[in-house]
């Protein structure tokens, strides 16, 4: 289990008769950028909630950062970072206050917060805005800041749920450079996206259809297997026969 950030085996989540997640099995290596794709309603969010320690599976097994999703939810939460398109920092707190607050919640020492938040603000080029409230920042800046906050406590894994939705094309690329940097620092990245060009930036991706993992491999291997020019085509091939369309 040493080199696996996430292990899922026959993981299932059932709501009544409905199998939102239906016996999915996969592994994510440490330090990997793993793209978790799927059609709307395929079960991505449900699976992600289990892996983040927010929901219990109905059956099957899963370990995240070495911790059991049934018995060690709190340990999982301490060892992961999370951000989504909707997640935004506290609009009425300043950039510095947001960093202090979230890092504090994750138990980073006061001294370390002080030292490292300075570096972070320099890296982001936000020196002048550090004491301004977050609400006034443009969306792209907010998302970059939210990501920085999500990895500030140096989690083993960071979960990103459509982090670049609606973001302009330049910022979207800067955001991915931050993802690469985090991966280079040894953080495992688990990311969902609707932009198929971003799927290409992942080391490996899985594509969920109707609660199951329909394919899992590197983008180039998937394109080869489906004889496709782009990931768009691969996705289309797999998802067009999906029975579920719900969100």
């Amino acid at each position, binding site marked *: 289990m040493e080199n696996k950030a996430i292990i899922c085996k026959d993981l299932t989540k059932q709501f009544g008769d409905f199998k939102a997640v239906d016996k999915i099995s996969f592994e994510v290596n440490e330090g990997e950028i793993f793209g978790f794709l799927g059609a709307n309603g395929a079960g991505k969010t449900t699976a992600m909630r289990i892996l983040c320690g927010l929901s219990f599976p109905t059956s099957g097994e899963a370990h995240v950062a070495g911790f059991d999703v049934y018995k060690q939810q709190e340990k999982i939460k301490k060892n992961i970072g999370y951000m989504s398109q909707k997640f935004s920092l506290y609009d009425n707190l300043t950039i510095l206050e947001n960093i202090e607050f979230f890092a504090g919640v994750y138990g980073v020492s006061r001294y370390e917060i002080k030292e490292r938040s300075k570096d972070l603000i320099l890296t982001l080029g936000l020196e*002048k805005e550090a004491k301004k409230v977050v609400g006034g920042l443009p969306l792209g800046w907010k998302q970059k800041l939210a990501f920085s906050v999500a990895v500030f406590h140096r989690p083993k894994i960071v979960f990103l749920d459509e982090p670049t939705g*609606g973001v*302009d094309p*330049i910022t979207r690329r800067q955001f991915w450079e931050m993802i690469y940097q985090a991966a280079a620092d040894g953080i495992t990245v688990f990311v969902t996206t609707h932009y198929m060009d971003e799927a290409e930036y992942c080391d490996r991706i899985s594509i969920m259809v109707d609660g199951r993992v329909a394919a899992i491999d590197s983008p180039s291997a998937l394109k080869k297997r489906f004889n496709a020019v782009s990931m768009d085509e691969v996705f289309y091939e797999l998802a067009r026969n999906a029975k579920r369309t719900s969100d």
Partner: protein
Amino acid sequence: MPAVTLKNITKKYGDFVAVDEVSFEVKKGELFGLIGPDGAGKTSIFRILTTLLLAEGGTATVEGHDVVKEFQEIRNKVGYMPGKFSLYQDLTVKENLEFFATIFGTTIEENYDLIKDIYDQIKPFNDRRAGKLSGGMKQKLALCCALIHKPEVLFLDEPTTGVDVVSRSEFWEMLAKLKKQNITIVVSTPYMDEAKLCDRIALIQNGKIMTVDEPQQIIKSFPKTLFAVKAKNIYKLLQNLRTEKEIENCDAFGEFLHLTLVSEKADEEKIKTIAQKYNPEDLEVKKTEPTIEDSFIRLMREQDNSREPKEMLDGK
């Protein structure tokens, strides 16, 4: 007469200029795309054109009617599907549709032809409450409700945001069919790959229109030769190439990097020579056709050069 005209339309929220002297026209029967990221000003423009928001400056018309003085006429002639689902969640599919038909003084039967293809897909759920529908079905119902009074101009604000590739392509097929019925369609989207499905597009960023043209024309007017480059460690290659003076811009584009050179005289060989310095494995270099996203990025950089990014932060 154009279906829609905007002349120097400006909208401010406090000190923040959301729409900055925007001018463009949409021809009758055209499928027109407003392409840009969140916060570019797309929704404000839609709300001004559908007479739900007043602009601070400029004039706009829809089907020849002024958006301020003749808002009543416009409301009868347009269909509007907002980005946020805004039908009555507690009414059923059929009740929602009947409600909107009644408001506009018509019946479902009267314009049944127009909605048939779309409505057939949700008809099996006629008695289900709108709030209990799946995302895709909600979208189809909203489109039916926006069409039920046979509008002359249809405004669709980000109908495909957050929707997967398969559902997105289905939605655009529906739009192509509607266009054949001579409805003018104005649609906004943050997905650059959808631009090519429109007759003409406006690229918008920071409240300003950067260009308006046919997608093919925008691609043609890309001023530089564009190259696609890849190697085994693509992120490292990106970082290395960016330090090179002879390379103008270099951006990640799916499995490739897209780059332009400062000098137009240089070619693939030149790029290979530069890249070889860093001993990349499996280097591949080729010319490639720009996409709308390449053009968008280029235009954004031009816009940014005349405007310090820090200034943006002072906005609300």
